[in-house]
């Protein structure tokens, strides 16, 4: 019986360098049905809801009161769908890591690549890059489609305006940062349900609770809450109580970096 290729057809393997692990994680990402499915949902929600909101607000503009006309923000209307699409993107980021723990595949992964930091770094890089490309496409498509729908009914926005361009580019960056947050929280908590609950709390629940607090408490919380601060990068009109767009986005990035750093440290320390 000739077993295990007594004369292996391939040369002596050369890995695992970081590039090898990146290639492996790329294969893993695209070989699960959850990836195209989640990204499709993000696309439908991001572009579809944006178009629907643009259509609804645009057609009501003519009959709207003065207050609505004064705060008319066509950019925001066309990008609103991304606020829901972010859930699909962040949850896929979580599952990319936590799915390995729930299936037990993490033991196979870390046996093949015992340098654990390399595995998490490759996962983070691959998924964040995919999320960044898709999110930028979604932001531009949602914006252009939304303005197309609004134009003729109400004043529309154009990318020639540098503030609008920053908001559209910023929307893609914001979603990519959340994608990385998903990977970090997934690696930290290792259980899909716990990680998803935590991220939903960060994104929606805690800022919501902030609304119930007196203004003196609410303003600093809203200002410095990482996802609220990061959200400023996709706003055209600046709220005086919020951080400026880029400092706000930087704060979100710092928060993500801290969570990711803790995930790296725990990954090295914990048994698998």
């Amino acid at each position, binding site marked *: 019986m000739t077993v295990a290729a007594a004369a*292996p057809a391939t040369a002596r393997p050369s890995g695992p360098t970081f590039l090898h692990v990146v290639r492996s994680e790329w294969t893993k990402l695209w070989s699960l049905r959850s990836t195209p499915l989640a990204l499709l949902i993000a696309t439908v929600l991001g572009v579809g809801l944006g178009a629907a909101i643009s259509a609804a607000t645009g057609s009501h503009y003519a009959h709207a009161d003065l207050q609505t006309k004064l705060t008319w923000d066509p950019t925001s209307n066309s990008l609103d769908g991304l606020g829901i699409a972010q859930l699909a993107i962040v949850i896929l980021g979580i599952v990319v890591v936590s799915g390995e723990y729930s299936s037990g595949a993490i033991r196979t992964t870390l*046996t*093949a690549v*015992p340098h654990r930091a390399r595995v998490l770094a490759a996962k983070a890089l691959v998924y964040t890059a995919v999320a960044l490309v898709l999110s930028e496409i979604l932001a531009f498509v949602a914006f252009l489609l939304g303005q197309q729908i609004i134009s003729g009914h109400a004043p529309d926005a154009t990318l020639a305006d540098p503030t609008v361009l920053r908001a559209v580019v910023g929307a893609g960056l914001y979603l990519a940062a959340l994608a990385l947050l998903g990977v970090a929280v997934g690696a930290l908590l290792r259980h899909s349900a716990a990680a998803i609950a935590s991220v939903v709390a960060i994104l929606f629940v805690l800022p919501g609770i902030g609304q119930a607090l007196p203004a003196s408490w609410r303003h600093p919380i809203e200002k410095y809450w990482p996802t609220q601060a990061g959200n400023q990068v996709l706003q055209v009109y600046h709220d005086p109580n919020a951080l400026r767009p880029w400092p706000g986005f930087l704060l979100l990035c710092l928060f993500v970096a801290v969570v990711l750093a803790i995930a790296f440290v725990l990954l090295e320390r914990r048994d698998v």
Partner: protein
Amino acid sequence: MVGRAMIEARSLTKRYGSTVAVDDLSFSVRPGRVTGFLGPNGAGKTTTMRMILGLDAPTQGSVTIGGRRYRDVRVPMHEVGALLDAKAVHGGRTAYAHLLSLAQSNGIGRRRVEEVLDLVGLQSVARRRVAGFSLGMGQRLGIAAALLGDPAVLMFDEPVNGLDPEGIVWVRNLMRSLASQGRTVFVSSHLMSEMALTADHLVVIGKGRLIADMTVEEVVRSSSQRSVLVRSPEAPRLAQLLRAAQASVVFEDTVTLTVSGLDNPAIGQLAAANGVVLYELTPQHASLEEAFMELTGSSTEFHGSSELAR
């Protein structure tokens, strides 16, 4: 291959809170033979294998492969191929994608993926999702993954679990053949009978402690439950003589005795000295199974009750 292929555990210890899963375990696994890693369920076999692969950190002690910790090994899949758990695969992936992603992580080419699929007989289901695989197919996939890097050391945790008889023979031959190529083969099992057919050498543990580290024959020979089958037309008189010589005697039928406590020569001499005719004098070796039960009898983690049998 020989020089770097030895697994060496030194005072390996793993505690979970107050539970000691592996207790001061030292042994070495050599190339060129199949070493069975034997113990009852819960004895610490899987924990030990996980420590060898760096998945669990030892509380104390160390384990190296070819003198290096697994983490410091240069191309892990080329040095060690492991089947720890057939379920350690994401069920949503196809067998091919699973193997390809593993191969890519270590710089192994696509051709080798096809080769190992062929080798374990999974090529016809390679594009199917693993979630639909039977336990036996899962084991074959795990073995394919272990063989991907053409490694010098192979570790299999309970590889015949869930395999049909044909699959069991296949795994047995595979392991023997890998060892004959000079590779180190370390296989865990709780089935002594399986190890008797496969292994050359045994590392036996119970409750996390080393019970025996010896060849299969030594395990059988060391068993104290050796007895001798004696047939004689004067069985009752011989039984009296043997009992007087501190042997214990059981009558199998009117002319047949099972004698323990005296060996063949002693029984023969006793019979000759007293003029007893013997028809047969056959040493009865304890089976490997019995030897194993005797070795691990006091160290089984979970004792079944015999109440229900009554």
